[in-house]
C-alpha cells in the first residue's frame, strides 16, 4: 500500500482571492472561456490575464509573465501548450503562487513524452508543495463564490447543496447541463483530470468539510488514495452528507497468483462494492439513476424518511399497477392502508372508489384536483405506516389545467415533514411561445418538490434514500457502542 498522504488545505485551489490566467485570450474554448466566466459571473477577487502577445485581454490589463504581476497570486490557471507548462510552473513557484490548475492536455493520458512530462509535474508538486489540479482537467467551479474556472457553464448556475466531482472532464460539463435543467443547485463542480497531484479522495474530503455542501456526487474511474477516501466516507456519514458514486471499470483484477481460496475468489470491483456498502456510499449504475438520486437527496437530505413505508396516490390505475410491480422488484415496502385511512378515503365520493382502495391508491383524476388533493393526502400524512409519499400523475405536465395541482402539491409539501415526491408521466414540451416557468412540471421543480419522469430510476433513487437513512441510523448507533 502507498503511504498515507496528509490531508492538505485546498482553500487556495477552491477559494482563491486572486487568479492569474496564463494563456488568457479573446478566443479559444478555455483561453477565452475561463476569463469570460470569471467576469460574467462576478468573481470578487483579482484577475490577472497573462499573455505576452497582448496588452489587454477582454478589457483587462494583460501581463507578459506571471512574475510581472505586482500583487500576490493565490491560483494560476495554465492554458499553454504542454511544452511550456513546466517553465510556467517554475515561474509560479518563484512568484509564490499557492495552487495551480493545468487545463492543458497531452500528458499521462497521451504519448511517452506526455507521460514523462507528467512525471516531472508530479516531481515538481512534491518539491514545491504547490497544489496542482490536472493536467488535462476541464477545470472547476465554486458556485457560491462565483469562481467559474471552466470553459462553459450556462445558463447561470444556481447555488445549492450538491457538489459533483468527476474524473471525466466532459462528463462534468454534461452533468452540469442536466443538473441545471432540473434546477438542482450546486456548491462545487470539480474535474480532477489526470490527478498528477490533487486526487478525487482529497476533493471529497474537502467537500465533506465544506459548509455549503450536503450531498456529494462523484464519477469514479479508480481511487489513488484509499485511506483519505475511507476517512472522508466515515466523516461524511457522521455529518450526514451522503456520497453518491457512479463508478466505471468492472474488470477483474489478476488473481491468478493467489495462494489461497480467498485470494482467488474475487476481483477489485467486488471490493469497491463491499467498501461502498460498508461505508454507506450509494452506488448508482447510470446517468439517469445518478441524476434522480442526486435530486432526491438534494431536496430531502433534511427530511429523511423515518421508516420504510411508501404510500402512493395515483391518478391512473394502470400506472398504479406498474408502480406496484416495480416496487416489488426493487424491494420497496408498500404497506396496506390502515382501516382508518381507508374509511376516510372511501367516503370521498369524488374518488369513485366504490368502497375499496389499495396502496398504490388509484384516486383517479377526481382525487388529484387542486381542491381534492389536500383532503386525499391528509390521511396518508396522518397514517404512521407511511414514511414517504408519492403522487403519481398521468395528465399532461404542461398547460394551464394542472398548474393548480402542481402549486397545491408545493403548498402541501411545505406543511408536513413527511417527504413527498411526484412522478409525472405525460407530455412535457409546452406549446411554442408559452411561459416555461408557468408549466406544471416547472412549478414543482422550482418549488423544491422532487419530481421525476422515469419510474424506475426514481424508485431506485427513493430506495437509496430509504436504505441510506436506515444504514446511517445503524451506523450512528454502533459507533456509539464501540
Amino acid at each position, binding site marked *: 500500500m502507498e503511504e498515507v498522504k496528509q490531508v492538505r488545505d485546498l482553500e487556495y485551489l477552491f477559494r482563491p482571492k486572486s487568479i492569474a490566467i496564463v494563456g488568457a485570450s479573446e478566443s479559444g474554448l478555455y483561453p477565452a472561456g475561463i476569463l469570460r466566466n470569471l467576469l460574467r459571473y462576478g468573481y470578487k477577487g483579482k484577475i490577472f490575464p497573462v499573455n505576452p502577445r497582448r496588452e489587454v485581454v477582454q478589457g483587462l490589463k494583460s501581463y507578459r509573465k506571471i512574475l510581472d504581476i505586482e500583487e500576490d497570486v493565490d491560483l494560476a490557471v495554465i492554458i499553454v501548450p504542454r511544452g511550456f507548462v513546466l517553465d510556467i510552473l517554475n515561474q509560479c513557484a518563484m512568484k509564490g503562487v499557492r495552487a495551480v490548475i493545468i487545463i492543458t492536455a497531452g500528458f499521462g493520458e497521451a504519448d511517452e513524452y506526455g507521460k514523462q512530462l507528467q512525471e516531472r509535474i508530479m516531481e515538481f508538486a512534491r518539491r514545491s508543495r504547490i497544489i496542482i489540479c490536472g493536467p488535462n482537467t476541464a477545470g472547476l467551479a465554486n458556485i457560491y463564490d462565483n469562481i467559474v474556472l471552466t470553459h462553459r457553464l450556462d445558463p447561470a448556475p444556481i447555488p445549492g447543496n450538491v457538489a459533483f466531482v468527476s474524473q471525466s472532464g466532459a462528463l462534468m460539463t454534461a452533468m452540469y447541463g442536466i443538473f441545471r435543467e432540473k434546477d438542482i443547485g450546486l456548491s462545487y463542480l470539480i474535474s480532477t483530470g489526470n490527478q498528477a497531484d490533487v486526487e478525487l479522495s482529497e476533493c471529497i474530503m474537502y467537500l465533506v468539510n465544506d459548509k455549503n455542501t450536503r450531498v456529494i456526487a462523484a464519477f469514479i474511474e479508480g481511487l489513488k488514495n*484509499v485511506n483519505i477516501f475511507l476517512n472522508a466516507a466515515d466523516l461524511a456519514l457522521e455529518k450526514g452528507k451522503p456520497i453518491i458514486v457512479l463508478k466505471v471499470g468492472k474488470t477483474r483484477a489478476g488473481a491468478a497468483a493467489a495462494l489461497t*481460496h480467498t485470494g482467488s475468489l474475487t476481483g477489485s470491483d467486488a471490493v469497491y462494492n463491499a467498501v461502498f456498502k*460498508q461505508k454507506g456510499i450509494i452506488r448508482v449504475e447510470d446517468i439517469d439513476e445518478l441524476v434522480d438520486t442526486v435530486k432526491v437527496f438534494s431536496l430531502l437530505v433534511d427530511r429523511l424518511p423515518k421508516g420504510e413505508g411508501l404510500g402512493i396516490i395515483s391518478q391512473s390505475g394502470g400506472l398504479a399497477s406498474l408502480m406496484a410491480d416495480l416496487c416489488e422488484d426493487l424491494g420497496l415496502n408498500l404497506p396496506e392502508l390502515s382501516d382508518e385511512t381507508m374509511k376516510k378515503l372511501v367516503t370521498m365520493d369524488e374518488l369513485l372508489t366504490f368502497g375499496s382502495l389499495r396502496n398504490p391508491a388509484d384516486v383517479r383524476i377526481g382525487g388529484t384536483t387542486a381542491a381534492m388533493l389536500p383532503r386525499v393526502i391528509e390521511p396518508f400524512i396522518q397514517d404512521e405506516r407511511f414514511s414517504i409519499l408519492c403522487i403519481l400523475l398521468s395528465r399532461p405536465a404542461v398547460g394551464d389545467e394542472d398548474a393548480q395541482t402542481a402549486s397545491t402539491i408545493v403548498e402541501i409539501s411545505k406543511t408536513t415533514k413527511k417527504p413527498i415526491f411526484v412522478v409525472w408521466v405525460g407530455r412535457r414540451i409546452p406549446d411554442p411561445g408559452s411561459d416555461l416557468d408557468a408549466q406544471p412540471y416547472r412549478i414543482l421543480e422550482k418549488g423544491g418538490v422532487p419530481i421525476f419522469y422515469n419510474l424506475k430510476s426514481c424508485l431506485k433513487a427513493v430506495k437509496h434514500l430509504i436504505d441510506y437513512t436506515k444504514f446511517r441510523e445503524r451506523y450512528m448507533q454502533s459507533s456509539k457502542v464501540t
Partner: protein
Amino acid sequence: MKALGDSKILSYKESVNILSRYGIPIAKGDIATSPEEAVEIANRIGYPVVLKVISPQIIHKTDANVLKLGVKTESDLVNCYHEIIDNAERYNPRAQIEGVLVQEMIQEGVEVIVGIFRDQQFGPVILFGLGGIFVEVLKDISLRVPPITRYDAEEMIKEIKGYRILEGFRGKTRSDIEAVIDVLLKVSRLSVDLKDIVLEMDLNPIIVGPKDRGAKVVDARLITL
C-alpha cells in the same frame, strides 16, 4: 507491496499459534510425525478422529486423497496413517510433509470460510462465505475492509445468498451465528494488527455448530510476507 515470490506459507503449528493468540477457536488436535505419535494424540483427544496430511504444496486435500474422516480405532488409525502418507507422496513426490494432523471429529455443523486477501487498492480485505461449492462454484461471498464493526460482521453474514442455510430451514436447526460474528471480529483484529505481515489467510472450513455450540476452525492456511 512485496512480490508474491517473497511470501511464505506458515506451518500448521505457526498458523495455530497466531490464531490462538487472537482467541480464534480451533478444533482440538496436533501434528504427528509417526504412527505412534498419532496414536498418542488420538488417545488424548478421544476417538473418532480425523487424519490429514499437512503440506504447503497440497491445498486441496480431498483431491490428493490425504484426508480420512471418522477414524474410530487404533488399528484403523495406523493403517490410515500409512495410506495417506503414501497418497501424498504419489500426488506430489516433491511435497514437503509437515506431518499428519490428528484432529477431533466434529460431528455436526455447517461449513463456512473466513479469509483475508490483499487488494491492490484497499489492502487487506476480509471474506466470508459458506464452504464447499457455495464459494467455489457459486462465488456466494461477502467482503469488507477491516477494521469491521459488529454491524459489518452481521451484514457480511446476512448478505450471502446461502444465509438461510445458517438460519436453519426445513426443520434444520439454526447455526451459531454469534460464534461466526465473533470469529469475523477476531479475524478483523488480526488483519489490522498483522497487516504488514499477513498476505493471505484461509480459515477453510470453519465448522459452525448449532446455536450456542460454537464454531471451530478445522483447517487454516496463512501466507506471510
